[in-house]
């Protein structure tokens, strides 16, 4: 029995090592490559070049703004919808599950051309508005936001909490902000950070709708330069992990919703 346990642990260790090599070796190689920005020297020249480029900050700030807008629009649209479906129209959940998969089925390029076709000419000539890009991002992030919220709501007995709030005299708004949303904190944080990670790296919509976002900037740098793209890739990776770290950090304060039932 003990031998079997030891064998399982060894197997697991082997897969951990293989997995780590698979993910870390290319990253390490990219990082080492990014340090060779100056000939015959190891240093952070490529990173300094990236930070010195005004387009870096401009594109990054633009994408950050878009990410904030996407979060506001996405959560503003999906939180009430998912709550409504869970509380009042559970039979629509299947449809919502299906819709949430559409962004994986319909490629962003189709979405972008659809937008240009529909919102290019009058009377809906909105293709020059950044709101249209944010709307596209909302669609792209729909699966992540929906799945996060759905998972969060499944972990709490929403209907009972809602009714308990009402029986104590609370109206829907008060119940939403004092009971439901605080108990969805980690789900909301997941949705927010996954949206940020998606928007910051998104290329297709931004290119086709002609916006100076961070994704197209990375692609442009990758086409024209050698070491800076590697530095950007490492920065982007670090940023994503920083977001995941933040999710973990903020979720730790969660009071174990699912454990209370």
């Amino acid at each position, binding site marked *: 029995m003990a031998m079997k346990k030891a064998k399982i642990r060894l197997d697991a260790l082997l897969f951990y090592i293989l997995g780590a090599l698979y993910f870390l070796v290319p990253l390490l190689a990219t990082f080492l490559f990014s340090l060779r920005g100056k000939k015959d020297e190891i240093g952070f020249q490529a990173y300094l070049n990236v930070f010195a480029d005004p387009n870096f900050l401009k594109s990054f700030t633009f994408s950050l703004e878009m990410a904030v807008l996407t979060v506001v629009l996405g959560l503003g649209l999906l939180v009430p919808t998912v709550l409504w479906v869970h509380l009042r129209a559970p039979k629509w959940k299947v449809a919502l599950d299906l819709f949430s998969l559409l962004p994986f089925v319909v490629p962003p390029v189709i979405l972008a051309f659809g937008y240009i076709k529909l919102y290019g000419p009058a009377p809906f000539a909105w293709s020059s508005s950044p709101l249209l890009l944010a709307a596209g991002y909302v669609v792209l992030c729909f699966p992540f936001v929906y799945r996060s919220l759905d998972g969060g709501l499944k972990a*709490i*007995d929403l209907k*009972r*909490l809602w*009714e*308990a*709030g*009402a*029986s*104590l*005299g*609370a*109206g829907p708004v*008060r119940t939403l902000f*004092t*009971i439901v949303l*605080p*108990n969805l*904190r980690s789900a909301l944080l997941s949705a927010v950070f996954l949206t940020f990670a998606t928007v910051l790296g998104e290329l297709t919509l931004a290119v086709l709708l002609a916006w100076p976002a961070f994704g197209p900037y990375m692609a442009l740098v990758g086409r024209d330069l050698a070491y800076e793209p590697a530095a950007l890739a490492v920065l982007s990776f670090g940023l994503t992990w920083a977001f995941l770290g933040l999710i973990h950090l903020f979720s730790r304060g969660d*009071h*174990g*919703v699912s*454990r*209370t*039932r």
Partner: protein
Amino acid sequence: MAYLELAKLRKSWGAHVAVEGFDLSVEEGEFVSFLGGSGCGKTTTLRMVAGFESPDSGSIVLGGEDITRKSPNRRNIGMVFQNYALFPNLTVAQNVAFGLRVRRVPRAEVARRVDELLGLVHLADFGGRYPHNLSGGQQQRVALARALAPRPRVLLLDEPLSALDARIRQHLRTEIRALQTALGITTIYVTHDQEEALSLSDRIVVMDKGRIEQVGTPAQVYHEPASAHVAGFVGHLGVLEGIGTADGRFSVADQTVTPPRPLAPGAVTRWSLRPERLVLDPSDPALERLVGQVQSVAFLGSVVRTQVVIGDQVLPVDAFVDPKTPQPRVGASVVVGWNRHSGWVN
């Protein structure tokens, strides 16, 4: 007019009628239990009183005010749920204070009331804890304190003890009744547990298939059940099936006994009897008696339940445990006796 009047309540989902023709008057301070099996409509009725379900027709009048279409948060009716439904993000004290904060009660008064309520449910030192740090019984006490804090006009309890183990259930049952009596709050309690309903209630509403079968005090429901269903649901029941003889007696397994009223010859008849109204080997010659064989003997603490086979039917007989009297032997022949006016013949 009673304090709470439910008149001709009806609720259906499509073709399924959950509650129909529900009429009930509840006096102020009364403790009423809705008792019935799964799907009998007891919880649906409670949820209509709370405002979580809208009746198709009928009315709910509380303290002279028609609240049938009033939203739940404006009814001032407290509710305790089966799974507690405590707010996980709030501490125990914040949970109890929630209803008071909603009503904008001054902070000092909230603190005083929370302390008072937590003291009443014996959780005075638990105010700073979160619900997930409490046991099931403690969580349900917090739920009770939370529901009582805003001084609701009516307290509704939806199977509040069913998720707890037997010992805690019994203890909390006593506490709930003591609290209700002390506060004098009108209470409706939903349960499928007859023992709970019998021990807690001023009156019991027995329900089946969305309708009221009987409303009465625990003693009335137990001793004078309105139907065989009520008799079977409340308390234990043994049933003998026999045939009416030419002289109107009750014949079972080639033996005859005298029923409370003469039977039609050849009529298939069921005589339902409470196990505690039967005696083994009776000395009183006035009792009806049938001979049978002991199938099993179960020791239930204060009571011994003997299953006696009469023909191909089994009749349970309960007797208080007497350490000096030997228990019946399995396989032994025994006489089962009872007063002819015991039980129900139909």
